[in-house]
């Protein structure tokens, strides 16, 4: 599955490259150089983010997080879930493993949904390492503000649909 994603990405890149080449050799060379330089500039940040996330996660008290998100923690639990999601470091595994552990440890489904949605949307470390260097800051902050209600809406949706 992981290699499938790699293959798909490279397939898209190669097809686009061929289209560029058919326009002009010059266009292809410039775009490839642009992409490679971009990637090289991002590398130190990504390295910092990916490798750093492991150390930050190692310090997180997972059982405590799970207890805070209990099924009867109500709205306060939701708020803690959202804050917890935002401050969980943004590696691909960490937020999901904490959420899964919380769910197993008796946390409520709406709380865990709010937690994973908040983590997916706001993980601070990803915001600083990946989004701000790559996108215009205006877009990043606008995205954060516009996304603020979303974890609560997701939790409300889960409650309305009556998932136990």
């Amino acid at each position, binding site marked *: *599955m992981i290699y499938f994603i790699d293959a798909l990405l*490279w397939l898209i890149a190669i097809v686009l490259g061929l289209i560029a080449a058919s326009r002009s050799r010059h266009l292809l060379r410039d775009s490839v150089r642009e992409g490679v330089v971009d990637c090289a500039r991002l590398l*130190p940040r*990504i390295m910092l983010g990916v490798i750093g996330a492991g150390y930050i996660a190692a310090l997180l008290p997972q059982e405590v997080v799970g207890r805070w998100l209990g099924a009867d923690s109500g709205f306060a639990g939701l708020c803690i879930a959202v804050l917890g999601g935002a401050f969980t470091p943004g590696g691909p595994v960490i937020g999901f493993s904490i959420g899964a552990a919380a769910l197993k440890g008796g946390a409520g489904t709406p709380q865990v949904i709010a937690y994973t949605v908040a983590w997916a949307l706001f993980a601070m*470390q990803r915001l600083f390492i990946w989004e701000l260097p790559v*996108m215009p800051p205006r877009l990043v902050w606008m995205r954060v503000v516009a996304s603020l*209600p*979303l974890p609560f809406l997701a939790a409300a949706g889960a409650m309305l649909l009556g998932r136990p």
Partner: protein
Amino acid sequence: MSSEAPLKRRPRKTFDWSSAFIAVTVGVAAAIVYWRDGQARFLEILVSDFSLFVDILPKVLAACLIAAFVAVLMPRALVVRWVGAESGFMGIVIATLAGVICPGGPITIFPIAASFLAIGADIGAAIAFITSWTLLGYARTLVWELPFFGAEFIIWRNIVSLPLPIVAGLLARMIVGLAARKRGGG
């Protein structure tokens, strides 16, 4: 093509304060892990995260190349018409669908969204695109989320997340509209 205005690209700095902040945090966390859990655990984390990093590398390079190609190849008139400021509700829906089908890991989406913005996409559509990729993208769900949570939770999470990118996109447009009116009035 040559008659169009040149792309507005932000020069990317090699150093910035946000990265410095994270570097300090990571340094402190790593030191605490070393001091608290010992050298073996410290190295274990380093090795496993480094293999993750190596795994991500080809995805990042592919994404940067795709972003560079998209910036020069996409007909800008088309982007403006489909997801530009005048694209209305449909533009946000189109951006949401694009986010769902877009492959890639966490970082691939950001350069691509930035290049779409540079060639005329509207900020609400760009935000709907990122949000939809973040919450609904099948790649992340299948590779990472499914093994941790199991199918039932995933299905529920995705159902309640379906309308969220559209909400974020509309909200972003509303904020932009309010800010513009304030600036115009004041």
